[in-house]
């Protein structure tokens, strides 16, 4: 295969459960194929590597047409928690780990993980807020340097 992908840099920009998983699954899948992978967490996507939040992410039931749920119903108390628990159950069935465990697994697989400098400054985050898998806080410029020679995937 002449055009096989050898390196990917995946940006995770959303902080809902359904916003975070696709990027994690793609990063993990890349490493499974022997493809070099880097994860860059920005804006609300940073919640996936913030210790207090990473295992509390929720599915958005409002403003999410994919849920096939009228907006007013989606806004009912408990609706997001219900959808989240359903989704987590289904994911466990197909062996997708909870976010915290998944982050550790992907990092152990050799994927580097970075937090976005601008977001960290904007939300006044401290190094101690992050899980130990985060390899550093970097600027967009540094992200592009690290991504050089590979594909960039924005999620």
């Amino acid at each position: 295969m002449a055009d096989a992908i050898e390196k990917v840099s995946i940006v995770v920009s959303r902080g809902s459960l359904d916003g975070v998983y696709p990027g994690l699954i793609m990063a993990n899948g890349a490493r499974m194929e022997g493809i070099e992978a880097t994860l860059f967490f920005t804006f609300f996507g940073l919640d996936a590597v913030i210790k207090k939040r990473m295992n509390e992410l929720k599915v958005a039931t409002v403003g999410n047409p994919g849920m096939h749920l009228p907006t007013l119903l989606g806004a009912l108390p408990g609706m997001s928690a219900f959808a989240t628990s359903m989704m987590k159950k289904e994911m466990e069935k197909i062996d997708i780990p909870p976010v915290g465990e998944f982050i550790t697994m992907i990092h152990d697989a050799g994927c580097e993980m970075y937090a976005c400098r601008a977001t960290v400054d904007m939300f006044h985050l401290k190094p101690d807020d992050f899980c130990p898998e985060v390899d550093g806080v970097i600027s967009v410029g540094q992200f592009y340097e690290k991504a050089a020679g590979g594909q960039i995937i924005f999620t």
Partner: protein
Amino acid sequence: METLTIGTKTLALDADGNLANVNDWTEDVARELAVQEGIPTLTPQHWTVINFMRQVFTKEGDAPSIRRLTKESGVDTKTLYQLFPKGPAKKAARIAGLPKPKGCI
């Protein structure tokens, strides 16, 4: 169709280059496939992974996910990637004589 020659035997391979017939597998086949994958010697830890994969496949019809390998075979994720640097699930499955795993995780 591609084939693999081990001693005097010629074994059929599938489209992915994995053994077409799971029952053709022997430890010699594993050693030869490992060399093809850039693993010159199979260590006891490699064999732990290979045997676990074959065991799960025989029972369930698909190779285990990395997560399950990690949790149940006793070889952690980091070691798994050191043992099979070019993608543990896929490479280990090939060496174990199994078809490419179907799962995403």
